[in-house]
């Protein structure tokens, strides 16, 4: 584990986690502290602005870009448990600054983006760990979200971490890389297509016989909503919450 000089990590909790899934950033804090990091939560942070950007509201998203650079300037490691929000920071914040024609903001954005990590990237690439000492004696399946695969591009780091969790059995999810149909405001603008996709994803999850579905929280809201409605009994959980579990602190 980490030694003398403790690494300071600025946590980007993200708005959806802050309000809907506070256990995820809490677990991230506990996990990083357990691994020897000092965690800070810059209170000036709010949201990645993705909902605005992806719905076409660039001007409305710019405030989020500015608050992100204000909150996180000066940190060497900015870590978020949300691949989707982090992907938006990486891919869309520079685009928005460019769109606004704000060179200064663009430079600030580029500087913070270079120091931003999705949680599994930080664990595997910076701390050099795949075994984080977690214990989770359950059968789980993993849905890699589209944004984790194709925007944040975190690859198979989540699976590598999951495989090292003591007691955990990872079962493959059929058609894992197929979108769950959430798509932010897509779920409201095209509700019929969205629910059709969510239902198929939930069917695939159910077919695995897993107790838990591990996935990022936006998709968890979507797939979890269908699993709950169908009384499938399958619970949903974020990867950070799995990794924060230890022997003795059993769920």
């Amino acid at each position, binding site marked *: 584990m980490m030694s003398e000089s403790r690494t300071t990590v600025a946590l980007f909790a993200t708005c959806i986690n802050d309000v*809907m899934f506070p256990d995820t950033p809490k677990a991230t804090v506990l996990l990083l502290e357990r691994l020897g990091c000092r965690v800070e939560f810059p209170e000036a942070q709010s949201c990645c602005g993705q909902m605005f950007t*992806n719905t076409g509201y660039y001007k*409305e998203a710019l405030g989020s870009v500015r608050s992100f650079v*204000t909150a996180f300037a000066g940190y060497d490691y900015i870590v978020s448990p949300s691949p989707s929000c982090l992907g938006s920071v990486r891919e869309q914040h520079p685009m928005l600054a460019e769109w606004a024609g704000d060179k200064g903001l663009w430079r600030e954005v580029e500087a913070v983006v270079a120091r931003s990590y999705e949680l599994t990237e930080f664990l595997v690439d910076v701390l050099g760990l795949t075994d984080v000492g977690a214990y989770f004696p359950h059968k789980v399946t993993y849905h890699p979200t589209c944004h984790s695969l194709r925007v944040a591009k975190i690859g198979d780091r989540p699976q590598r971490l999951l495989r090292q969790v003591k007691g955990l059995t990872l079962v493959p999810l059929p058609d894992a890389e197929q*979108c769950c149909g959430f798509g*932010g405001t897509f779920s409201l603008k095209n509700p019929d*297509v969205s629910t059709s996709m969510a239902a198929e994803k939930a069917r695939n999850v159910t077919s695995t016989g897993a107790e838990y579905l591990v996935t990022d929280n936006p998709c968890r809201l979507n797939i979890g909503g269908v699993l709950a409605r169908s009384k499938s009994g399958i619970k949903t959980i974020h990867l950070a919450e799995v990794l924060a579990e230890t022997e003795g602190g059993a769920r």
Partner: protein
Amino acid sequence: MTATDLGMPGSSRRTPAPPAGRLIDSPPFPVAAKQYLADSQLRANLHHATSTIRAKRARVTAELPNWEQLRLAGEAVKDRVARHLDYYLEELEQNLTANGAHVHWAADAAEANQIVVDLVRAKGVDEVVKVKSMVTQEIELNEALEAAGIAAWETDLAELIVQLGHDRPSHILVPAIHRNRAEVREIFLREMKLYGRAAPDSLDDEPRHLAAAARQHLRDKFLRAKVGISGANFMVAETGTLVVVESEGNGRMCLTLPETLISVTGIEKVIPTAADLEVFLQLLPRSSTGERMNPYTSMWSGVRPGDGPQEVHVVLVDNGRSRVLADPIGRKALRCIRCSACMNICPVYERVGGHAYGSVYPGPIGAILTPQLRGTAAAIDRSLPFASTLCGACAEVCPVRIPIPDLLVHLRHRVVDERKRSHLGLEQALMKGGGWVMASGPRFGLLERAGGLVQRVTGREAVGPLPWPASLWTRARDLPLPPEQTFRQWWRANRDPLCHPERSEGSLRDDEATTVTSVTSASAEAAAE
């Protein structure tokens, strides 16, 4: 229905009438999607066809160690063409002319159609055979010819099914993907006899037998035709070469048998050199049919006495393309080589099929190209950029690396911006309020506390069916209510003293706090409406 409606011979029509109405008047995507989603036969057909072709594509692209380099090369060539389109088009015109072709320029669909009608009339014929071509569908050439009393016969098997079925294509590569064999058999038995050689009475729904019936039906038309009409997959500027890539051999027939060839082509199809074909002739078949090589690649590089068409016309069509070119982000859509990989991988397309897109270009490419070519005045065109979850699967397979999700977002912004100028709606008000709140951590924290009240008041963890607009979510999914304590509150209670208070932005001014409360109540009212 009358004989005229059905386009029976003897009526004023020469060819089967397509469905009434214009594509641009199609209902917005969500409305059409709902209708097609309910068609279980369609969904079964689409699922089967797209998953088969997806698997084939994945196999044959994985076997090339340099696939990514090929994609990068394809992207680079197409981007260079876009930057210097004027230069390459002039070079192309010179070399086509030197090869004995006549080059015509058409600014829009009407001009292109008029040019073709005049050329066919000048040959004194009243029918033509056609190779499958997207641009002639885009400009609705068949109907323009029909109006001039000229019959245009589609010779690609699937296009023939669509034409005889009084139907529209629903996929750019497999236009009849929405039809199954039983339907094809019925169409052939019912329609072929009205427009040429009849299908044998004994016809069953064996694909082999269906193909044989089509072959017989088409043969007469091929042998009779004096004029063939094609598109082009690529036009080589350096050599003045037209390249047509196909699978059935019908293209080869149309390009070689008739005395006159008219090739109608979008201006973005030009590539600089013959060497560039090395890249595209690998990218295209592997991405589109999942084959290592397509069965027929026809190249025309000049009139040769006694061999092939003796008169060749090339109609270069703009039809909105130079407007697309003017937008450095939007123009990336012009890289498209019409392979259809994006629609085969798209989970939205797979569920609703091509007709829901109200355009000859369906699926992800349609969603980014159509609103650029046609503009965003029509409801369908404004809805297309939103017909995606932004999952990004399309961009991952696109052989010319078009960042389709980025273009979707770019066009969403265009649509929202145009709407902002015309009127103010609920969505805009919510986005504006939300954007203001999210621009500041403390403002957001304050809003959160208001949200926490809901949970404390209702005392529930999740909700089932709710009224509109929440029903859009809750009719199929439960919605968890936020837990009582937000993370921010937990942090303050458990960690705050340890961290550096000087990093926080500071507390809200009183006037800001008041506005947050009113934004909250405004959103609550809006939600209750």
